[in-house]
Every structure is written in structure tokens, then in C-alpha cells.
């Protein structure tokens, strides 16, 4: 296992220059020839937040302290998941003309897409903290622990991206299925409502949704001011590891078969 990782790291080092150029390309292409450029990555989550807080504060916001931050934490995390996995899903097919002509590790295209989404996420996260400051959230040293769910979520996104991109090469129907899936997942992620209103055994079911777990971690630390227990930590890691492992296995198995479908 250690050797495999070492080998992969060596491979990435060897292709570091290409990787940097791919990241630059993906990032530039995202906002090519737009007047606002990178600002769009902030406008869209903020508008979403505005609409949601206007519409939902009266229904769900009464019993939830710092409801705007509650919404923002959910939106922020879920958007990162969605952006990242959508980018990942398309990464192989978008680069099919390169993959069929040059011998390169295929996951590089996926990773570069993920870096582009990560930069977006980082920017939105900064705005999130600014909002939190204005909303009177007490900033504590605990906030450092947010690195943990973020790291897990990055790995989880990469894993999902690997799986999705492989499926997308094999059947194109996945893009429509995944639209429906993310829409359902969004409603099940308790972005704008409060799960505490449900009976206890139903509340537990929410933990089957990985994105919900990551969102909960964020809210616990930022809004409620405590670090979640070891079970949540384990769950964060477990979901990330499963996704990455499944993705890596699929790539290993189908690495040379992708070609036939491109």
C-alpha cells in the first residue's frame, strides 16, 4: 500500500509541470471572456443564499440560531461537492482527444478540475467567515478543526469524481441520472431545514448521506461552538476512503478500456 502511494506520488511529481498547466487551463477556461471573471464564483453562492434566506427564514429560521450562517454552511459545502463532482464527471470525456493521443495518467485531468473547484470553495469560505463575523459568531481556536472535514470532503469528491467519470465514459445517461441524484441529495442534506425536528431514529438516517455529515461538522464547529465526537470523525474518514478506494479500483480495472468508448 505504501509503495503504491509512493509510486503515485513519483508519477505526479514527474508530471507536475503538466499538472500546473492543466490547472491554469481549467481555471482560465472557466471564466474566459467574462466581464466579472472570478467574481462569478462568489456571486452565484451569494445570490442563492439571499433567495434562500428571504424565503425560508420565516419557516425554518425561527428555531435555528444564526440561520443565515446555518444556510450558508450547508450551501457552501454542498456546492463544493456538486461543482467538484460535476467537473470530475466530465473530465475524461472533455479531454478525450488528448487521452486517445498521448500516454498520460488519466486521473490528472480529474485532479486539475478538482483544484479549480477547490479554489472556488476557498474563496467562498472566506466570504463565509466574513458573514460569520458580522453575524456575531464567536471565533474560537476550534475553527482549526474544520481542516479535517474539508480534507475528507476533498478526498470524497475526488473519489466520486473518479467513479462518475468512469461511468460517464461507459454510459452517457449518467449525466441526467446524476442531475436527479444531486437534486435529491440536496433536499436530503438539510441545507435549509433543521433535522432536530425529526424523531431520533430518523435523525440518525441522515448520517447515511456523506454530504450531510460534512455539513454537520461545519455547523457544529462554527455555530454551536463544539467539536463533534469521534463517531463523526470516523464517518467523515470512512466515506472519503470508500469513495476514493472504489474510484481507484475502477480506474485500475478500466484504465485501458476507456479508450474503446472515447
Amino acid at each position, binding site marked *: 500500500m505504501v509503495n503504491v502511494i509512493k509510486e503515485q506520488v513519483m508519477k505526479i511529481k514527474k*508530471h507536475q*509541470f*503538466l499538472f*500546473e*498547466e*492543466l490547472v*491554469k*487551463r481549467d481555471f*482560465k*477556461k472557466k471564466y*474566459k*471572456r467574462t466581464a466579472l471573471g472570478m467574481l462569478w464564483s462568489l456571486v452565484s453562492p451569494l445570490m442563492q443564499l439571499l433567495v434562500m434566506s428571504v424565503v425560508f427564514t420565516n419557516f425554518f429560521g425561527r428555531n435555528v440560531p444564526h440561520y443565515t450562517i446555518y444556510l450558508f454552511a450547508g450551501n457552501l459545502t454542498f456546492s463544493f461537492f456538486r461543482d467538484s463532482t460535476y467537473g470530475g464527471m466530465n473530465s475524461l470525456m472533455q479531454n478525450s*482527444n*488528448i*487521452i*486517445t*493521443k*498521448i*500516454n*498520460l495518467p488519466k486521473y490528472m485531468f480529474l485532479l486539475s478540475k478538482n483544484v479549480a473547484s477547490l479554489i472556488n470553495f476557498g474563496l467562498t469560505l472566506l466570504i463565509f467567515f466574513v458573514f460569520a463575523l458580522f453575524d456575531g459568531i464567536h471565533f474560537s481556536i476550534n475553527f482549526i478543526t474544520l481542516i479535517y472535514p474539508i480534507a475528507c470532503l476533498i478526498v470524497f469528491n475526488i473519489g466520486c469524481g473518479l467513479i462518475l467519470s468512469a461511468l460517464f465514459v*461507459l*454510459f*452517457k*445517461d449518467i449525466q441526467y441520472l446524476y442531475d436527479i441524484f444531486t437534486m435529491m441529495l440536496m433536499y436530503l442534506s438539510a441545507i435549509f431545514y433543521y433535522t432536530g425536528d425529526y424523531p431520533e431514529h430518523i435523525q440518525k438516517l441522515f448520517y447515511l448521506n456523506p454530504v450531510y455529515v460534512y455539513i454537520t461538522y461545519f455547523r457544529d464547529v462554527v455555530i454551536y461552538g463544539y467539536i463533534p465526537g469521534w463517531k463523526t470523525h470516523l464517518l467523515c474518514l470512512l466515506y472519503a476512503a470508500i469513495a476514493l478506494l472504489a474510484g481507484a479500483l475502477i480506474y485500475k480495472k478500466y484504465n*485501458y*478500456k476507456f*479508450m*474503446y*468508448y472515447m
Partner: protein
Amino acid sequence: MSKIELNDVSVSYITGDFSTVGLKDVVIQKIKRQYKPKEFTAVKNVSFSLEEGELLGIVGSNGAGKSTLLKVISGIMRPTTGTMAVKGNIASLLELGTGFDGDLTVRENTFLRGAMLGYTREFMNRTYDSIIEFAELREFEDRLFSHLSSGMKSRLAFSIACLVHPEILILDEVLSVGDGAFRKKSEAKMLEIIGGGATTLLVSHSLDQIRRMATKVLWLDKGQQIAFGETKEICDRYAEFLNGK
């Protein structure tokens, strides 16, 4: 010691499974018990070996499997059956335009494409100016790649690619590009690389070119290996075959 050795290599493509005919038809065929994904064998039982410094010319009509064979040797595809041993680093120039992005500038594309060919950033910083000079695109550095004429695009593509310094060079019809003057200049450059001692595989439709340059020739037809051997003998036979058609 041979640099490249292929033993009985075959490559099949899968066609006619769910990704091409659709899930509905696959289910119907499965119910009727008629489902079998078809295989299309693009390269059948090819065997040859090349020594260091040799130049192999590959001839054959369209669809003979030449490009597929080059993809296998480049490591992009794997032989379905048979074995293959390739020693040394490979520069595979299957299509010079691969990897360019119309939305980026000429400068950005030069670095991106250089990275894809396995150059280092340091190397690109050092040679960037000479690439642009060679491609004669100095005034166009900051233009979008999609705004270039197709001749300019291929000039840029060639200028980046011709800096490779491989042990094994794979060329798919890209010996020279562009118009008059540039054509000469590019061919000279390519000959310089080949002359540098790289073991070369060259697909070409120009039999003259093959006669002039190749030390060995491989003749493929519909995936089958018709012949492999000395240049003169195979070229004569192939010319006869072309005349007979």
C-alpha cells in the same frame, strides 16, 4: 539488443455493446439470448523487432491498423493478445495538434503542449523564444490560438514537437508541415532528430519517402501483417500491389 519487440500482437475494439446500440436493444437482445458484443480486430498477429537506430516504415491503405499499432507501441492502448517489449523513453507524435486549446493564447498553449510532451518548465522557459522564432509567430504570441490560421497552428505544433529528444520516436505522417519554405525547414529538422540515433517508427503514404529513409518496412492490410523485412523488397512488392488494384 532489440529496442522494440512485438510478438503476435492483436488489438480488438469492442463494438455493439450498450454504449453504441443503447440499453434498450441490449436488454431485448439479452432476452432473445442473442446478445454478444462484437469485437473488431484492428490489428491481427503482428510480430517484428527493431534494433537501436533503425527506422521502420509502416505502409498500408486506410484502415490497415497503422495508427492503432502506433497507439499500442506508445502505451496508450494495450495489446488484446500477444506480448510487447519497448525499451527506452518514447516520444509519440501521433497528431501534432493534440492538446491545444482554442481559448488560450499562443504563449499559454506553447507551455501546455510542451508539458504534454514531457518537457520541464525550466526547459520551456529556456526554449520558448526559439520555438516562437522557429514557428515565425512572434507577433502572435498573445493572440488566442483559435484566431490563428491552420497553417500557423501546424507551424506552432511542429515547432514545439520537434524539440523532443527521445530514444524511440513515433511519427504518424508528420514529417513536415506548412507551405514551401517551412516545409523544407521542418523536414530538415525532423531528419535531424531521426539522424540523432532515435529508433523511429514512421507511418507514411509516400512510398518514396519510405524508400529513402526506412531500414525496415512493415506492410499491413486490414490489420493483417502482410510482410516485414528489407525496405527495397517490401516496397517493390507493395508498389506492385498498389498498381494491381
